[in-house]
């Protein structure tokens, strides 16, 4: 028995990176450094280093922010919704989902600060915050979600930390950390009771908060009068889209981790198959909301909507729009309907398409609307009519994406990506060292 357990720990305990892992970290750090340089310029010179102007007053930062919020919702989907509905197969995916959620929600917060004209006055949000502003709602729900997500990542780790403090192939210092973080977990019945109760409570709690963060993010747009944003469909539409993006991200990360850590015994084709089916369902729901979002305004074609929709369907943004809809939504559904399409590699490729499509979809939601205000754009430089991000804007955006990946990478380096304790229980394995 104990050998099986040792094998399990050996398989799942975090490991030092190989040269590949180190190279990956180095690349991410370089991207972040380039972005930081641009950000310093932005703080010095102002947002003038972006291509945003009085009409295109929000750009790639805000769409990137919406993307991060969307991705972060996956934590609640996999850990909470699937867990509460008693689905067992998702156990090996819960930690991946939570890690992604924590990284994404942190970067959502950072991104919104990057977009601010006066980041030095951030504290005004707390000193002078006014409840009637959707931004304040966002600040409240995002901090709440961050706290719950961190706890939901941390609590299930307690028994794992306790296992790691005894078995991890790490230096004494790292083990000491594990020991401290395990909060003296010994696994007695009292601890287990509190443990499972608090996880259950958090899983329930996180669902409304998750819905709230993305609904409020949708409301940032919906509370304005602008064509393309003035929609009552936005809340559910954003949430449906978020689940698609988040599920795609989980598939992509789990594929990479399975490859690098040789976890074929733990994350199997069965899991990919299941996630593939989940993704189809989520894509179909999202497609349904998209039809609501675009078809009905097209049917009515009020003057303002018509101009906006024309730019999406056949105008300036048509290529992006159709690529995001077809490449990021329709094709994935078709491919994933076939069992062959739900094998790891094809599913991985589809998931990348879904995530990239989801990113551009956010851009399509944020940017085009702003170039169609109610009054004509006149008497301003020609360049103000269009928006295309500058390289500095891109470098900052890529830096935030790299930072999210870096957070995921570092967490993967020190945390067991697959819950050891839960897996051992499911497999009926006992830690010999502890029972002694």
């Amino acid at each position, binding site marked *: 028995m104990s050998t099986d357990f040792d094998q399990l720990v050996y398989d799942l305990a975090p490991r030092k990176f190989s040269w590949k892992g180190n190279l990956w970290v180095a690349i991410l750090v370089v991207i972040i450094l380039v972005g930081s340089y641009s950000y310093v310029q932005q703080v010095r*010179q*102002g*947002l*003038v280093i*972006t291509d*945003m*102007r*009085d*009409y295109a*007053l*929000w750009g790639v930062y805000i769409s990137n922010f919406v993307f991060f919020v969307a991705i972060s919702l996956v934590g609640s989907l996999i850990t909470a919704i699937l867990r509460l509905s008693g689905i067992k197969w998702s156990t090996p995916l819960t930690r991946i989902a939570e890690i992604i959620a924590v990284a994404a929600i942190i970067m959502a917060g950072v991104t919104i600060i990057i*977009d*601010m*004209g*006066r*980041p030095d*006055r*951030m504290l*005004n*949000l707390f*000193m*002078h*915050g*006014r409840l*009637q*502003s*959707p*931004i*304040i709602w966002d*600040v409240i729900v995002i901090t709440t979600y961050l706290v719950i997500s961190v706890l939901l990542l941390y609590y299930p780790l307690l028994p794992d930390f306790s296992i790691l403090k005894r078995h991890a192939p790490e230096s004494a210092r790292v083990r000491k950390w594990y020991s401290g973080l395990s909060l003296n977990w010994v696994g007695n019945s009292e601890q287990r009771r509190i443990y499972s109760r608090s996880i259950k409570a958090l899983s329930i709690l996180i669902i409304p908060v998750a819905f709230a963060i993305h609904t409020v993010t949708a409301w*940032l*747009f919906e*509370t*304005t*009068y*602008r064509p393309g944003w003035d929609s009552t469909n936005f809340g559910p539409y954003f949430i449906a889209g978020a689940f698609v993006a988040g599920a795609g991200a989980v598939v992509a990360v789990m594929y990479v981790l399975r490859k690098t850590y040789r976890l074929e015994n733990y994350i199997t084709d069965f899991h990919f198959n299941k996630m593939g089916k989940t993704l189809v369902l989520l894509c179909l729901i999202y497609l349904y909301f998209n039809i609501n979002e675009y078809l009905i305004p097209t049917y009515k074609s009020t003057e303002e909507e018509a101009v906006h929709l024309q730019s999406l369907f056949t105008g300036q943004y048509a290529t992006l729009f159709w690529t995001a809809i077809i490449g990021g939504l329709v094709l994935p559904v078709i491919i994933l309907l076939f069992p062959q399409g739900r094998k790891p590699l094809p599913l991985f490729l589809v998931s990348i398409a879904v995530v990239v499509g989801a990113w551009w979809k956010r851009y399509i939601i944020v940017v085009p609307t*702003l170039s169609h*205000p*109610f*009054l*004509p*754009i*006149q*008497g*301003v*430089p*020609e360049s*103000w009519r269009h928006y295309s991000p500058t390289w500095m804007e891109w470098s900052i955006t890529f830096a935030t994406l790299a930072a999210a990946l870096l957070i995921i990478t570092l967490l993967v380096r020190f945390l067991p990506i697959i819950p050891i304790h839960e897996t051992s229980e499911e497999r009926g394995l006992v830690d010999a060292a502890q029972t002694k």
Partner: protein
Amino acid sequence: MQNNLENDNKSRRKFLDKGLKIGVLAAAGSVALAKVFGYRLDEGAEETVELMSTDGTLMQVLSSQIESVPEKKIDYNPREGFPNRKFVMVVDLAKCRNAKKCQSSCNKNHYITGDNAWIKIYKMQDNEKSAPYWQPTLCQHCDEPPCVKVCPVDATFKRRDGIVLIDNNRCIGCRFCMAACPYSVRIFNWSDPWQGEKAESIPYSPDYSGVPAQKGTVDKCDFCPHMIDKGEMPHCVSACPNDVFSFGDLYEDTVTNGSGQSFQLSKLLKDRAGYRLMENLGTAPSVYYLPPSNRVIDFEEGLDNYTEFKSVEKSEGI
């Protein structure tokens, strides 16, 4: 009486007399007085004050005959505004020929150095068959301002006197208010405004927007409280050579144009079928427009001045 007034510049009705708050009722009473005795008002040593009655007639009244309300400057708070006032503007589209003097004067006096003028004159045409017209557009100072509603830090605020202002010392630059404004009147200081020493030496107050402007914050038309305070008209009103703008007080039911002619607001709006922009949005603007019908000018004249891609002269404060 009206002529009398136009001839004499000095006796021109001070737009907002700092010391005197004149009761409309008292004024109405004096109309009768003036009619009965028919006296010349400049005669005699006693000081006279010009008033407008509720039916819109202008007259000079002996200051001893009117009741004055004491000085109210003492506890003036830029967030509260002038007590018992409610400012309104009327823009007469029938007179606008895109002279752009309002814009250049506004730019100059607010030290605007970028391409983002606060007042824009749009070339409008509602449909193919109807005639084109010029539409000067500034902050509408809505009574239900969408920008104020969404501001997370109370940096943009609505005052009791109807003016919507921005506290540039508090604004965090989120630009949500710009997204919320359907009239596209808000502008952002994307870079350092470099306004020059003169503007930078003026102490900041939300009352005098954009002076000095701050990088990373929002600006817009402020209805010129700094001019009102001096008893003068907003810059655009006095700069317009065609008397397109009239500015005044809703409570007094009076607006006055750049040449000093005063009108009864309610009558003017009734006679000329005044309207507000995008009434359907429920923003309740403080700026009224008079339709461009029976025009006294030629639309084409303005085309010379029309620059689709350029803002007008910028501030010389640089």
